[in-house]
């Protein structure tokens, strides 16, 4: 068929549909909702899982993160007994034995977290003091923005040096350069040697497993040996007339492997090793790689569910179109008879009605694509959620809407073509 003829048939179809604007509009609604919901839901789902996956990726897919967890039974016992010291968590022993016995390990970075107040002149801020290793920036999302990070020399000499997060530095030193200034924590003076910036997300920032569970944006990094020497192993917190003491050697150990493959092999080994060192479940093992795989699995299931819902809604839309087209064929029986008398072949009638159905469904598809692209943008703006409209979802939704038009248009069209021209001409 020549292109011009096809264009003419499409124009004719649009003209016929415009004769019944209300009906055509209502018929298209099914497809519009179907296509729109596919694209919008996929975009919102994609956005949500993207954020989750990014968070997990930042933890590092070749990392295993061990965290101390206060065992629940011990905690309640601690609250009941006033002078009980809650002794739990990861040990220096754990860090050392992982470094020495697990194959494929590249770095083992231990970390302590102590809640303290930092003071400069008259200004005081509550902070997390993080005692860690010079390699910490390598395994985390920390970026040195000024000065330097901690060094092995600091570690060995237990230097009173510290590195501040930039946001803390801005609050603490509004008028001067923080580098080489001295801040005071728990009566000890620390020299500021560098500034770092957290590039990761809030979830991922180190958190002490204490009862307050509140994240503090302001972190002060000090050498692990210094932290141990200056602040001790036992952390005492007072609340409501009682006090509670925790004794935790390490709050977190980040183990970095040479490759993600090594992680999979090492996970059971590390779990066995920790089980040997610990009598109670006072630690957790976080494997970002596994989380990533889980997130991908979840996303796959989510997509299948969405796909099914979308398919159902498009089929329902298609049935709606077919229904209307059957009514249209009956209503336009006379027109079909005229066209047949004037030389239209059966194929011409099929083409005419099929094109009309496809125009209806593709028109609905176009409006649906538009709405499906706009709605996620509105959702992003109003609900502060990330949404990603993937081109593939637009192509699939639009393609299906076209296919629905063809599939559900064939029956009414062939019904129209099979009408006896004489009967059709006589039809009132």
């Amino acid at each position, binding site marked *: 068929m020549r292109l011009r003829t096809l264009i003419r048939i499409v124009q004719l179809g649009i003209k016929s549909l415009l004769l019944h604007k209300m009906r055509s509009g209502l018929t298209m609604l099914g497809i519009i909702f179907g296509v729109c919901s596919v694209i919008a839901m996929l975009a919102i789902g994609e956005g949500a899982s993207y954020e989750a996956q990014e968070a997990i990726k930042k933890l590092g897919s070749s990392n295993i993160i061990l965290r101390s967890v206060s065992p629940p039974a011990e905690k309640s016992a601690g609250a009941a007994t006033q002078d009980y010291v809650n002794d739990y968590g990861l040990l220096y022993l754990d860090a050392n034995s992982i470094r020495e016995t697990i194959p494929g390990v590249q770095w083992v970075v231990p970390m302590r977290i102590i809640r303290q107040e930092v003071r400069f002149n008259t200004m005081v801020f509550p902070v997390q003091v993080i005692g860690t290793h010079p390699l910490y920036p390598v395994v985390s999302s920390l970026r040195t923005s000024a000065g330097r990070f901690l060094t092995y020399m600091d570690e060995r000499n237990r230097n009173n040096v510290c590195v501040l997060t930039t946001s803390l530095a801005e609050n603490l030193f509004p008028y001067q350069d923080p580098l080489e200034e001295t801040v005071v924590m728990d009566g000890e003076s620390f020299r500021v040697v560098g500034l770092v910036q957290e590039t990761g997300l809030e979830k991922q920032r180190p958190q002490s497993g204490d009862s307050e569970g509140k994240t503090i944006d302001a972190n002060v990094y000090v050498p692990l040996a210094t932290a141990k020497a200056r602040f001790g192993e036992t952390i005492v917190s007072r609340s409501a007339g009682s006090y509670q003491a925790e004794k935790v050697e390490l709050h977190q150990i980040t183990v970095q492997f040479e490759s993600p493959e090594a992680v999979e092999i090492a996970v059971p080994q590390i779990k066995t090793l920790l089980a040997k060192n610990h009598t109670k479940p006072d630690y957790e093992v976080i494997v970002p790689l596994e989380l990533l795989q889980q997130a991908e699995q979840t996303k796959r299931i989510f997509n299948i569910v969405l796909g099914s819902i979308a398919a159902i809604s498009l089929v329902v839309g298609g049935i709606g179109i077919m229904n209307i087209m059957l009514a249209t064929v009956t209503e336009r029986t006379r027109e079909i008879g005229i066209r047949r008398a*004037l030389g239209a*072949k059966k194929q011409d009638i099929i083409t005419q009605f099929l094109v009309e159905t496809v125009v209806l469904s593709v028109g609905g598809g176009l409006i649906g694509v538009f709405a499906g692209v706009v709605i996620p943008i509105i959702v992003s703006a109003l609900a502060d959620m990330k949404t990603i409209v993937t081109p593939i979802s637009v192509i699939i939704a639009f393609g299906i809407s076209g296919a629905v038009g063809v599939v559900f248009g064939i029956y009414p069209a062939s019904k129209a073509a099979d009408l006896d021209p004489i009967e059709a001409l006589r039809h009132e």
Partner: protein
Amino acid sequence: MATTDIIRIENLVKTYRMGDVDVHALNGVDLTIEKGSYVAIMGASGSGKSTMLNILGCLDRPTSGKYYLGGEDVSTMDDDALSAFRGRQLGFVFQSYNLIQQLTVIENIFVPLFYQGQDLSERNEHCGKLAKLVGLEDRLDHRPKQLSGGQQQRVAIARSLVNDPLLILADEPTGNLDSKTGIEILDLFDRLNAEGKTLVLVTHGDEVAERAQRVVRMRDGKIESDVRKRAPVRAGQESDIQTTA
């Protein structure tokens, strides 16, 4: 077969099956119509004239017998071939005008050519001329609903001429019109015939039949009488009507 014969029908039989009974709508009809004829087919309902019209119009196929239209054996053609043949060789005028509502006057006139794969932009002038012929040159962009019955029938006549057909078939063309408008339409048919067009008109109105050059009366599926009042218009007399491509 003489070259001037447009229609030649030999022993045409059309049988419908109604329940267990065979109804012979046409029962052995022989008819020849020459070029330039103006034939009125008359008869009571049930006489077989509608079946005759359907077969003449290639909308239906005979059960047996032969039907030659313009020298071609139509009785053996399949559905597609018949459709194409109708589009190329026949013009229809119906009682209820049968225009397509969503199309304008000029688009309605163009419809038969559309199904021959032609393009309106190339045939605009031709369709416009036909509209002028029937006196509707200033209504080209009107829709059927905006026209009176007489005007709609004029559009239908213009449409029946657009493919320069061998034969124009009219089924009660004045049946839905008041007598004054009916006379105008019949005058138009007279003009077409005078200019060499072959017309076959099915009617039960005597005043319509009076104008025809030949009246064929049917009864019980057979031709009852066949009266020629004058000779057909000679082919040489045509024509200032430009209907050819």
